[in-house]
């Protein structure tokens, strides 16, 4: 046999390198420093913080510690996590989940089916849950064909309570400590899917967006929350921006005194008065998608044209003929949400072109009653029936009652029912979608990823996959 002396090794390495841009092997160790606006008090999966910012951050961090039986694959469908497989009987009234073998809790002990059963019993009092060999069996009061989707919720993650204050899970990181300003997570050495690369994740809490940007730029943080309006600033500095699919909905919601049928033409006119595409491309720097529906198409599975209301807006001349008080709207935004304020101001400018006079109100203390609010709703990356039901819950029963008599889609409802409910919600233009915005993160120079992005399409943090480049100094960790 001849010795191989062709150009093929070069060709092979060329192809490899063309695919794997960063050729270095990942390195273990170091502290990954993350900034967040939230003040997290607990990572207990069963807790439901009332503060939306805390809830959002907690939804990203808790899955690093506590894992569910099943998870939503960002590419679609369900994938097994702590359950290796599952099957249903009696039309979905009884479910059997066979547990994955070789999973260890953070204290090193093997995860047993009874751990999972006990954990789930703590949050679902009406279910009968029992360990059965290498499986758990769940008996439900009513058939639930889509139970695995239900189990992807954060609150159904498996958490084992060792003491009244100490909870452990099976995730890639364990809780080291939580104090007033920081959360420390440590790598779980026996993680069933491979130990994370970094040793410690240090989460600095209560950092404003501006402070986070500074922290990233001066090298005090490795991963920060980012507003779309700041994305270009980072990319121009050569820093990476990681993004989920659109997971935040901005929508206008009219107040009851503006929700009557007599105001409907004006509502429709406002809904058509602003340029969503320009808003997303210019103000939101191309990091958002114009919204005609509550659910983005990647969550609903249908085009916006199916759900958008059919009614026509008033012409500018018709609007101008209205009494001034009827075509003047006070638009309220949350005081702490600078992005919402920017969007509201852009809407106000566009609306003025159409003859609708919009004044943006950022209340500090007592303020006049608004006519319309710009709300921000965090969307759940789940099945369309659940996603829409949760949007309706977030909008509140008062708003929903003004918009439609349709109840939220039942769990497991087919897509035509989801569409019918969404269409009904949007029909009277009491709720007007504006933009779908992804969760954005700035990624520091010393952070590299192994085989997946730092943030998944569904918004999950993929921290176990991140590693720190050795060239950058490990210094500047806050004392």
């Amino acid at each position, binding site marked *: *046999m*001849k*010795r*191989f002396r*062709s*150009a*093929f*090794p*070069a*060709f*092979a*390495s*060329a*192809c*490899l*390198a*063309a*695919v*794997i*841009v960063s050729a270095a092997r990942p390195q273990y160790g170091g502290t990954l420093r993350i900034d967040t606006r939230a003040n997290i008090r607990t990572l207990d999966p069963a807790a439901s913080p009332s503060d939306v910012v805390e809830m959002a951050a907690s939804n990203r961090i808790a899955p690093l510690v506590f894992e569910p039986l*099943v998870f*939503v*694959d960002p*590419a*679609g*469908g*369900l*994938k*097994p996590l702590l359950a290796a*497989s599952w099957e249903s009987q009696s039309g979905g009234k009884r479910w059997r989940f066979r547990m994955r073998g070789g999973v260890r809790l953070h204290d090193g002990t093997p995860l047993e089916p009874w751990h999972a059963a006990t954990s789930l019993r703590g949050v679902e009092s009406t279910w009968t849950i029992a360990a059965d060999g290498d499986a758990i069996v769940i008996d439900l009061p009513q058939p639930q064909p889509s139970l*695995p*989707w239900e189990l992807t919720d954060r609150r159904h993650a498996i958490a084992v309570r060792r003491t009244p204050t100490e909870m452990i899970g099976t995730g890639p990181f364990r809780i080291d400590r939580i104090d007033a300003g920081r959360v420390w997570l440590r790598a779980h050495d026996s993680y069933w899917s491979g130990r994370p690369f970094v040793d410690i994740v240090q989460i600095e809490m209560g950092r404003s967006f501006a402070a986070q940007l500074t922290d990233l730029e001066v090298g005090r943080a490795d991963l920060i929350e980012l507003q779309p309006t700041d994305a270009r600033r980072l990319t121009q500095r050569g820093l990476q921006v990681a993004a989920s699919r659109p997971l935040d909905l901005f929508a206008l919601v009219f107040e009851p005194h503006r929700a009557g049928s007599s105001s409907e033409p004006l509502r429709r006119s406002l809904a058509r008065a602003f340029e969503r595409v320009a808003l997303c491309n210019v103000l939101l720097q191309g990091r958002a998608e114009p919204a005609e529906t509550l659910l983005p*198409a*990647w*969550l*609903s*599975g*249908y*085009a916006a*044209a*199916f759900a958008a209301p*059919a009614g026509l807006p008033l012409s500018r001349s018709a609007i101008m003929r209205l009494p001034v008080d009827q075509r003047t709207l006070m638009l309220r935004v949350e005081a702490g949400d600078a992005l919402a304020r920017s969007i509201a101001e852009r809407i106000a400018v566009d609306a003025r072109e159409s003859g609708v006079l919009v004044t943006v109100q950022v209340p500090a203390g007592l303020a006049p009653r608004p006519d319309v609010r710009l709300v921000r709703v965090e969307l759940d*990356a*789940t*099945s*369309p*029936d659940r996603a829409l039901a949760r949007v309706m819950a977030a909008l509140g029963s008062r708003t929903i009652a003004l918009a439609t008599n349709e109840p939220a889609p039942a769990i497991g409802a*087919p*897509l*035509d029912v989801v*569409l*019918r409910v969404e*269409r009904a919600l949007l029909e009277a233009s009491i709720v007007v979608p504006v933009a779908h915005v992804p969760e954005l993160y700035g990624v520091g120079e010393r952070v590299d990823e192994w085989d997946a992005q730092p943030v998944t399409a*569904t918004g999950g943090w993929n921290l176990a996959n991140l590693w720190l480049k050795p060239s950058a100094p490990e210094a500047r960790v806050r004392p």
Partner: protein
Amino acid sequence: MEVLSCAAVGFHGRAPFPRTAACAVLILLGGATVRGQRAAFQDLASELAAKIAAVVAPAGAVFVTSIPVDAADEAPLRQVAREVARVLTARGDRLVAAEAAAAVVVTVGCSTNLRERACLAEVRRADTRQVVSASKADDGRTSGDADPILALEAVPLFAQRAAILDLAPLGDRLLVLDPAAITLYSRADEGWQRVESRAIGPARVWPRDLRGRLRVSGRAIEAFLPGAVCRGPVDLSGLTCVDEREPWPLAVDNAGIDAARNFFQTPEGVSFVGAAALGADSDARWALADPSGTLMLMDERRKPLGAIGSSDDVAGLTARCHPGAAYLLASARTIRGAAQRVDLQADTDTLRLLRVVGRRLLTAATPFVLPGRLTALWAAPGASVATVVAHDAGTGRYEAFQVSISCVR
């Protein structure tokens, strides 16, 4: 990632470099999910059509239209819309071409969400709107069935210092066409062994960018060259070459190559370097790479429809796992940064696997960097294997590959 099977073609003169290594290269290249193929909705078409038929009064004038959520969904959506039209026509409805002439407008949309693949149809009649749907859940036990991942699989076949114009594997034998001769090789333990060679005579002055094409029909071969054709049996005995300009065996009708040029012309006079037939999901019949590097579409009357991208050469390729779909294998200069990263000479070409849906060009697999400039790209019409030759300026060799599409489900 699952392991692709590598084609069982040997490495000429490359024995110590194991086949598995080549496989590894190819597997890594296959990482891209094909959005254009990801969602198939054909299995939902019948159910959706039946539900539409149930809510549409028979024997009416119906206009069927569709709304794609994603460009990649366009082709499968057309198939569903066609099925809906077929069902409605079969039961006596009259399909009309304009919405204004219709009593009922049916709008079909198909897409995926995290739960399912779904098709929706809105049935609009006067002021009423009704929605029906058909879906198939992705519950983790069925996922992946409809999601083949495509990869370009390139198997090194032959290398020599003289330019390789084309080659034709014949079982254990190999015919190689170069500017001076046609040579027949036989497979031996140590690689290819020359059996017979016949000069292409008499000596000619060829164009600088010489191109040539082999066609094997049973025991006969034809070698097409600019302004000349050689014919003879596969064993090369009695090979004769004559000066004549013959149509070459390409996807589109052509008048061959002029003796001093390197491009073809259609009967209508459209110049092109390479051509590929397109599938039913395209609005065009052919894609052509023109001499200026533009990838353009052409209709069935061979009338240009406009540019859709750029490519220095193109050939058509089919995938065994995706019958009926037509892919383009197109070449272009490697992006400078990529060439530097992979430590190649700056002058390299990249092969891209593309698909034309409607008039959109979709990427179907991760691009494949060649070890040099592409000098030949040929595929017989309807073939699942293409011949690719690249000139590696660093080693001064011409490397020939057989390129096909691998699928992973």
